């Protein structure tokens, strides 16, 4: 007589313990999944470099590099910072464009186009680059950093990116 009662009591307690476990697991999942999602979500987000407008391609002459200053908005969480970046645009043919980051690959000085010598010259340490970006003379460890360009309905666009300076390999900064 006593035994079945004890067994029933034990199974009742097991059931109640399972109900408690179910409540904890259910609430844990219901709150835990959003909490973990919110905590690690932004870490998984890759910041895509934006396409920036260079204007109509008509403003660029074939074989004459042109300097364009771009306003790049960088976002750090809720803080937005504007910075001005320079790029050199070289029009190779009617629909072919090359864009170079405006910073010398040696130590990051701003270089300029010397029309008479038909080459890019960096004033800091006398680095010299060809119109194709190749190093012709001086200390730069690699050719000028090319940037992605594209044409969107009559608008030439570039994707600005910074690279680590002074290294032979091109590594995004």
């Amino acid at each position, binding site marked *: 007589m006593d035994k079945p009662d004890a067994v029933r009591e*034990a199974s009742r*307690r*097991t059931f*109640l*313990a399972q*109900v*408690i476990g179910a*409540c*904890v697991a*259910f*609430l844990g999942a*219901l*709150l835990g999944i*959003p*909490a973990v*999602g*919110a*905590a690690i*979500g*932004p870490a998984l987000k890759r910041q895509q470099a934006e396409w920036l407008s260079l204007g109509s391609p008509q403003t660029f002459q074939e074989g004459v590099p042109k300097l364009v200053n771009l306003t790049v908005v960088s976002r750090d*969480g*809720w*803080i937005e910072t504007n910075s001005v970046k320079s790029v050199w645009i070289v029009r190779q043919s009617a629909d072919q464009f090359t864009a170079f980051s405006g910073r010398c690959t040696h130590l990051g000085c701003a270089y300029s186009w010397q029309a008479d010598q038909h080459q890019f010259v960096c004033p800091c340490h006398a680095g010299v680059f060809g119109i194709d970006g190749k190093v012709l003379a001086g200390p730069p460890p690699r050719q000028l950093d090319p940037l992605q360009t594209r044409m969107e309905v009559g608008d030439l666009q570039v994707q600005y990116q910074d690279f680590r300076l002074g290294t032979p390999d091109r590594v995004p900064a």
Partner: protein
Amino acid sequence: MSDAIPPQPHPHANLYGWFQDRLNVAAIWQALFIRKIPFGVNLLYTLGFASLAVFVVQVLTGTILALYYSPSPDHAYDSIEYLITEVPFGQVIRAIHHWGASAMVVIVVLHMLVTFGMGAYKYPREVTWWVGILLFAITFAFGFTGYLLPWDEKAYWATTVGTNMAGTVPVVGGFVEGVLRGGSQLGALTLTRFYATHVLILPLALMALVAVHLFLVVWQGVSVPPGLWDKAIARLRGSARSPRALETEAEYHAVYEDFKARGRRFFPDLIVEDAVVSTIVILIVIAFAILFGTPLEGQADPTNTGYVPRPEWYFLFVFELLKYFPGALEWLGVVVLPGLFFVFLFLLPLLDRGPRRSPRYRPISMVVGAVSVIAVAFLTWRAVQTTPPTLADNRAERLTATEVVGRQLISAQGCTSCHVVNGEGGTVGPSLDGIALRRASAFVHSYIEDPKGLNPNATMPAFLPPLTHEQVEDMTQYLLTLR
């Protein structure tokens, strides 16, 4: 999970055995969870556990909010906007925290009313009651410090009013107000102060007091429902002593041990009730969060004279009370009256020392309690009744930083001397409310810059100059939000 400490085959047979061997965890488990709860305990006893469960939800959601929050007037609003637009689940977590705060207030107040109604603050639980009053006060302090943090209109204005209230107290008022604000003005120092209070001081205080509260609950056991208790005491005494005589320690323990012997185990018999009730409460909070969300009003704008601040619903009774204590006597209503109420709560176990706990044998306590509840309910109801409909507009309105600048310009340029803006202003020119329905933004912009260019008969002055193109655009952006 049996009554006895489980027999161990070998001290180091498993991980549990290893710890058991050193820490005797089975005895802790036995003392906290296998203890007997007195006979007669019902669902009203689940409210304390539910308060703790909602607090755990607040800690969890609050921690996530803190990951994305910046306590500075420059960035607080932007950081909240970032949270609700960019962070996965950000909006719903913020809404759970918002509704969780309301749930805390509701459950804590119910817990207190039940304790009050049952006379459970009587011997030997006076200290538990006092700690409970402090926890009740901390719950409200959490609410008050929490809603400044988003730095939106409601945050700024409700806190301005709230801290000013402290300033109305004679002699020490100015000092208290300065301490609350961290200076004479509501600003950066107020925000960091409220933030530190909300996320460090109050949680630490609450956890320490909860630890004491829970320790006392386990140490002394929960009270027996008053009807059963009074009958049992009377039965014990028989005709030997009057039921009105003070209860002796021996009487108390004899009756309590009897109830305990007939009671159920905390785990799993009673904790399952706590678990189910708490789960339902938390599900209601989550449902409110998903269904109603939580508003983020426009960014705090100290020049916005049109804003009608309203506190959270659980402070509405204080807000309403202000109206009955005009001028120099205001501090009586907002500081002294609530202060006296707290003093009453503290003194209650010392004043009401009769042995019987049923409400019908405690007429004075019950009348004071009922009057307090009715007064607070009435004041809250009055405050809701008299809330002007403009509040609804303000709630729906969420201005961007540009629009806030625009509104400041509109008020500085005196546009309302001729035009109606947001329900107020002159009738010389057309009302600008609902302009977005009638005019394109380019038209509004050009018109402000040079009215005669679009309408040769216009009497409105041109605003370019004195304003810049960008300023006119800010004004335009704001005007287009008017409904």
